[in-house]
């Protein structure tokens, strides 16, 4: 092989068609269906674009993987930028997060939102950043990608589903829609792979109570024993 090509391959700058991400490269998301669709899990670093409505389980889908990342990198922070409502610390603590490892940033101006995200990503002391934002341009995403690569951190951008017009250079794009048990997901974009058909992610293992059972008279008992996490 030509030395330049092998150099580029070693630097991970060159992608070949026969190359698909090996499954052990990703981090398990905590949901079997999603792991299967992503052939392993979320990437180690990069920008993940999630288009979802609020309140259908989009944050809950991320929590197990963020928790895993926190356990792996205990000195680093989770940054939540511009959440649409106030974050309930009780839920985070109950799920197993150490609260002083969580930082909530609420910028007053819209343009400061992306600045905060970039700073947090490239600082190298945040393993995951969750950003609620409306519109993004290609250049902004590229900047965030570079910052995430520099700080080896993962950025989740949660956006409303209707703002879809251009293809952004994100590492991973997921479209979420509500489902009776868990959440419906479709991979819209993924580096080095084709998009698949929509699939259902079963979240009952973590939140058995949050499922629309066919028969509403049956109430599930809220026991911790149900939970895997």
């Amino acid at each position, binding site marked *: 092989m030509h030395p330049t090509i092998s150099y580029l391959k070693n630097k991970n700058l060159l992608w070949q068609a026969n190359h698909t991400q090996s499954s052990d490269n990703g981090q398990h998301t905590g949901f079997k269906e999603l792991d299967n669709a992503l052939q392993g899990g979320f990437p180690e670093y990069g920008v993940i674009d999630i288009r979802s*409505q*609020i*309140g*259908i*389980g*989009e*944050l*809950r889908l991320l929590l197990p993987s963020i928790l895993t990342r926190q356990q792996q990198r205990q*000195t*680093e*922070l989770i940054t939540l930028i511009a*959440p*649409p*409502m*106030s*974050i*309930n*610390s*009780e*839920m*985070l*603590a*109950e799920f197993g997060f150490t*609260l*002083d490892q*969580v*930082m*909530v*940033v*609420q*910028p*007053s101006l819209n343009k*400061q939102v992306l*600045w*905060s995200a970039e*700073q*947090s990503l*490239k*600082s*190298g*002391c*945040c393993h995951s950043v969750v950003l609620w934002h409306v519109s993004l341009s290609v250049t902004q995403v590229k900047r965030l990608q570079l910052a995430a690569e*520099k*700080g*080896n951190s993962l950025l989740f951008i949660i956006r409303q589903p209707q703002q879809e017009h251009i293809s952004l250079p994100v590492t991973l794009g997921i479209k979420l*829609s*509500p*489902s*009776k048990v868990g959440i419906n997901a479709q991979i819209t974009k993924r580096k080095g792979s084709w998009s698949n058909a929509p699939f259902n992610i079963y979240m009952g293992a973590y*939140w058995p*109570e*949050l*499922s*629309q*059972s066919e028969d*509403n008279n049956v*109430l*599930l008992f*809220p026991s*911790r024993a149900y939970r895997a996490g």
Partner: protein
Amino acid sequence: MQNIWLYLYFPNLQLDALLQQNPESNIHSQAYVILDEQTNQVCQLNHTAYQAGIRLGMGLGTAAMLKGDLQVIAYQEAITKNRLNDIAQNLYLVTSDICFFNENSLLLRVHNMLNLYGNLTSYWQVVQHQLLQQKVNFHYATGHSPLAAKLLAIRAWDQVTDNVDTIKQAIQNTSLQHTDLTTKAVEKLQRVGVHTIQALLKIPLADVAKRFDIEVATYIGKLTAQITHPVNFFHPKKHFDRVIELLYDIENIQILQAPLNQLLQNLEQFLKARDLLTQTLVFTLSQRDEKMIELNIHSQQGEYLAKYWAVLISLKLENITLSAPVFAIRLVVENSYIRTPDKSDLFAGKQGRLSRLQLISLLQAKLGEDAVSTPTLNNDYRPERAIQNSKRLAKSIQPFQLYALRPSFLLTPPQRLQEKISIAYGPERIETGWWDTKPITRDYFIAFNQLGQWYWVFKTPRGDWYLHGVFS
């Protein structure tokens, strides 16, 4: 051991402080004088002004006649004092006994420092090195009494020696004009033919006391070290407080960075020499005809490096506008603490560019203190009281019973439920707070709407439904 005193005389303190800010060459070719407005006399001048024939004590009119493009700046005692204080602070690092003799000179007690430095020459080398760093003009002299050293320094003798004869000879040749005696006393002495110190010292002290004022006798006594001269020694301030007067008024934020950086450099030197770190800087920008702007810059992690503070300041400056030109900047650092080395693991692998505290300071500098918080918990059954967002990244209190099935987002305050929902789970009754002003009785349900969004709703005893949270 004989007493030796070193007197340092700084003739151009205010001017040096001003010119130091702008080291460009054209400023030094320009003639500058500092004018004492009370006496209307030139009290400080630079070399170019001296060459033009301007001398100390000249009136403004005469000075302006000698040099057309003369730059005149009003004398401000505060600046001079401040600068002198800085010099004393720096000298304190190498010599212990420093005394402010008047607003433009320092007196150092040398003889007790010689045990440390061995001899006078090596002592003077160290002191001189400190003084040269300050970039000020100075004259110096040693003497066996404070007044003798002063007398020689003022006439710019510029010699350091502990030889009694050399000093005595130098003093004797000095004219009475340079002494601290009043003009009246000098005139009186001149009328009887006493023009130099030598002539004055020839008269026995008892005769002097009889024929002239008692102050002349006291002066001679102090000069010859027959009467001890009481001095108050300087104790350095614990904190950093420095003012710089700008050579030109500054209206542009970008230009303001340069003098701010100069202050930060000074701070860095100050903190580094003492091995200290600080977390808060207070800048005061004095604006012409307007209120002063106070800038508080916080860093979560203690820092001393100028370049680190410069980043935080530039972020802070983005948020302010100057309504009037700035003419002076003051930097005060009240609290500082001893630096402890960071204990980082050499083998921990990838290490971030910033520490988490640095990141928080960075975000707070740009977005404001309130924008960055960390979620904390409060031991209370009421959901809105259980959560709190604290500004500091504080350690949470001891754990307590947490309840499952809590939404990820809370609406503050709860809103009236507006849409049709189906209940999936509930009720969970929370009835508490009867002991204080905000008791609640609520039945909480988990519900979903037609779009499949998960809500946390509650019903009051009166039958009103509220939306309190979203299971995101």
